C-alpha cells in the first residue's frame, strides 16, 4: 500500500499526511528508504546535536550504520548505550529512532522520529554514508 503512494508523489513533504492517512503509525517499519530525502531530514532534525564527521552533543554518524552500539572510544555515552551491545542495523535504528527510551531505557538522546517513512529515509541515508 505504501509503495504505490510513494511512487506517485516521490519525496514531497506531501507524503507525510498521506502516509499517515494510509494507516501507518509508529512501530511499523517502512519498506523503502529514500536516502536523498533522509539527508534533508538529517540536516533539519539531527544536525542540532549530531554531524557525520565529528562528535558533538551526540556521537558522529559517518559509520554509525553497522557500528556497534555505544562503541566510540572518544564519546561519553550513557551507561545504557555503553552496556547495550548489538549493532546499529536497520531494525535497531528503527526502534531507537521511534522511541529511544523504550528501546534503551536510561539513554540520553530523548529525540523521537514518529513517522516510519522518515525513519526509513534517515536509515537509508546513514547506510549510504557508511558505505561510502
Amino acid at each position, binding site marked *: 500500500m505504501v509503495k504505490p503512494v510513494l511512487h506517485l508523489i516521490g519525496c514531497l513533504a506531501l507524503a507525510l499526511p498521506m502516509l499517515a492517512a494510509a494507516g501507518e503509525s509508529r512501530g511499523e517499519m517502512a519498506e523503502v528508504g529514500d536516502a536523498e530525502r533522509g539527508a534533508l531530514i538529517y540536516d533539519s532534525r539531527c544536525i*542540532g546535536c549530531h*554531524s557525520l564527521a565529528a562528535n558533538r*552533543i551526540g556521537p558522529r554518524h559517518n559509520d554509525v550504520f553497522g557500528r556497534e552500539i555505544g562503541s566510540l572510544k572518544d564519546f561519553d555515552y550513557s551507561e545504557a548505550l555503553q552496556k547495550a551491545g548489538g549493532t546499529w542495523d536497520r531494525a535497531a535504528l528503527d526502534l531507537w529512532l521511534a522511541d529511544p527510551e523504550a528501546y534503551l531505557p536510561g539513554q540520553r538522546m530523548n529525540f523521537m522520529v514518529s513517522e516510519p517513512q522518515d525513519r526509513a529515509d534517515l536509515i537509508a541515508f546513514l547506510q549510504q554514508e557508511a558505505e561510502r
Partner: protein
Amino acid sequence: MASIDTRTVPEIVPARRRFLQGAGKASLSATAVALLIGCETMASSASRQGASDPKKDVSILNVALGLEHEAINAYQLGAESGLLSQEVLPVAVLFQSHHKEHRDALMATIKTLGGAPVEEKAIGEYAKALGAGGLKTQGDVLTLAARLERGAANAYLGVIPAFADPALAKVSGRLAADETMHWALLASALGQPVPEKALSFGV
C-alpha cells in the same frame, strides 16, 4: 497557496536589525533574571510535588546545555572570523547573548534539581567539530548559524514529550521559539524563502 514575496525580505531585515540592537541591550539582564527565576520556581515546584524523576529531566537539560555551549562558541567563532560585516556582527553578538541567557537559565535549573551541569569544551574543539576552518565568507558563517539554529529549534521541540515535568517541557518550547526567531532572521538575511508549508518545524 499564496506565497510571500521574498524580494521584500532583505528590506525588512536591516530595520529589524536596528530594532533588535536597541531592544536587546536594554532588556537583556531583565530577561535573564526573569527566565532564571521562572526556571528555579518551576524546578522547585517539580521536586516539591515529587511528580517526576528529576534525574531524567536533568539529563535532557544537560543535553540542551551542551547545545547552548556549542551555540555560544559557534557565534564566537563567527564573530572572531573577521568575515562578518559591521552590520551583521552586532546581530551575531546579540544572538550569542541569547544563548548565554539560555545557558545560565539551564545551569541554574540543573543545579536546583540536584544535577551537575555539563562543562563547556575548549573553543578549538567546537571549531574542529563545526568545521570552522572551512568558513570563507559571511554567507558561509550565516549558513552554518542558520543550520544550527534550525537544528536546535527542532531538537528542543523533539525532546518536549520526554520531560517528566510539564513546566520544563514549556521551557523547552520557549527555547525552541528563540532558536526559531534566530533562524528566521538568519534565513531572511541569506535571502532564503519563507517555508511554503506550515508545520515545517518539530515534525
